[in-house]
């Protein structure tokens, strides 16, 4: 069988913070048009692994391959250049700025260094309306918005710039039901466009219904990588909690 090249392959990633070993030989891969659920208990190392891919942190050891080639990701700009966009768990917005400024932060539209404010505003309005985000005025500083509105801006930002790989670290945690549904629809839509998505969530129900594969971590180590439907929800929960793989014939 002719396996396509994975979009992302993280091999034997280890990371320690001083004496604390957050990740030990963590591995993960992601194919185009695939949604992979990244699971694990609090502190399992999920966010750390995602931050390493996003360039927000660097691994102590291990390597990252993008489209089969070794990638050197030292900072967020490197990751972006590889088409990696991230929705961070802790909100990554500047409260003192409005939605368009946040959406275009670090890659403002400009001509000779002069901001193209009107264009950014228009594009921001368009991007936000795609997610049906209700924001009274684009000029409002985001610190005056609700958690969900802010989260939606983060999400719009990640999908606006032609990403190939999107990391979503608990994207629906701050959202209401309707908005969560929108995000799930969005994920389906992105998937159809061949984008690979890494989705961290503690909502086992969503994960079970909307991911193709799961990767489970425990204490910074891989427990299991499998097609989601090879296990039941209960089995997955049990692996997250115990950190020991459930034996199965069908396991990949």
């Amino acid at each position, binding site marked *: 069988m002719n396996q396509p090249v994975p979009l992302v392959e993280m091999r034997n990633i280890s990371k320690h913070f001083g004496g604390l070993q957050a990740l030990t030989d963590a591995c993960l891969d992601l194919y185009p048009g695939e949604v992979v659920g990244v699971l694990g208990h609090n502190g399992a190392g999920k966010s750390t692994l995602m931050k390493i891919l996003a360039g927000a942190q660097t691994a102590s050891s291990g390597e990252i391959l993008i489209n089969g080639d070794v990638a050197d990701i030292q900072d967020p700009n490197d990751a972006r250049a590889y088409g990696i966009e991230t929705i961070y768990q802790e909100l990554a917005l500047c409260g003192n700025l409005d939605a368009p400024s946040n959406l275009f*932060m670090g890659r403002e539209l400009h001509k000779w260094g002069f901001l193209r404010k009107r264009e950014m505003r228009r594009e921001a309005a368009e991007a936000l309306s795609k997610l049906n985000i209700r924001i009274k005025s684009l000029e409002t500083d985001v610190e005056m918005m609700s958690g969900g509105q802010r989260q939606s801006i983060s999400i719009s930002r990640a999908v606006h710039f032609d990403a190939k790989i999107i990391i979503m670290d608990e994207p629906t945690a701050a959202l209401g039901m309707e908005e969560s549904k929108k995000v799930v629809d969005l994920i389906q839509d992105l998937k159809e466009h061949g984008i690979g998505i890494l989705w961290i969530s503690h909502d086992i129900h969503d994960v079970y219904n909307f991911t193709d594969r799961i990767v489970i971590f425990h204490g910074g180590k891989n427990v299991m990588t499998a097609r989601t439907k090879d296990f039941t929800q209960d089995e997955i929960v049990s692996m997250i909690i115990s950190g020991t793989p459930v034996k199965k014939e069908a396991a990949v």
Partner: protein
Amino acid sequence: MTMFEKIRTYPLTWIVVVALVLAFALTMASPYFLTSGNINNLLKQVSIVAILAAGQSMVIITGGIDLSVGSVLALSAVTIGWLIQADVHPLIATFCGLAMGTLCGFINGFIITRGRIAPFIVTLGMLGIARGMALVITGGVSYQILEPLFLTIGNSKFLGLPIPIYFVIVTYFVIHIVMHYRVFGQHIYAIGGEERVARLQGIKVDREKLKVYTISGFLAALAAVVMVGRLAATPPSVAQGIELQAIAAVIIGGISFTGGRGLVLTALVGALIMAMITNGLNILGISSFWQQVLIGVVIIAAVWLDNLKSAARQ
């Protein structure tokens, strides 16, 4: 937002109203206040602090502070004086003075970003270093500067306004454009808002900060050029403590001390308000001791008002 709402919430509106009320009160108190002689005097007084406050605003909006501007001003002035007394062409001397201030600012920024040392500490160090160097270069003496270039800057008028005012106008015009119409300015506000976020979104935080401190150093040197013109001399002890006046102007203007918020133009009005208080109390014959008390009160009141405003925002 309605037009009225826009005007009401624009940061410049209230501070200008305060300045106008103060001007009106002083005019009522003394007919001398509004004479052209006094206004010219006031504008000359305000110019140096105003130029420094422009740089200081940028620094404070990034969430930092520059305590070294007074000393850097002195070192730049002394550089100019020393070169002129060594028969260097005044334009070249001026250029070297500007380069000296810019270099000091660059060093500040370099150490802050590379050494990860708090701006307060680095610029406090530079406050000592630059002042000390000014004294070392001159051996403590003040050079007299009788070059026409500087006499013109210090004493002439253009279209009825003293020349230093044009330095102020150009400075604020350029900085305003930079802060609100350039990508660089957008980055400065982002860094002041949440530095970690700015970094995650790919803003080259260290490079932008380095630029900001360099600009502050350059503006200190520009203020030195005006100072040399006004004094017709370059005493190495000039402008001691002026950094606190620049910082006060920024605070009175309502620029947030924690960064990320405020309009540079308000620092100009802040500087004007301080100058009006000093000038007005002089005219009214109130002792300079009381002036210090009053300015202290105004600074605290300004921040208190600002806190009330941000409390209302939340």
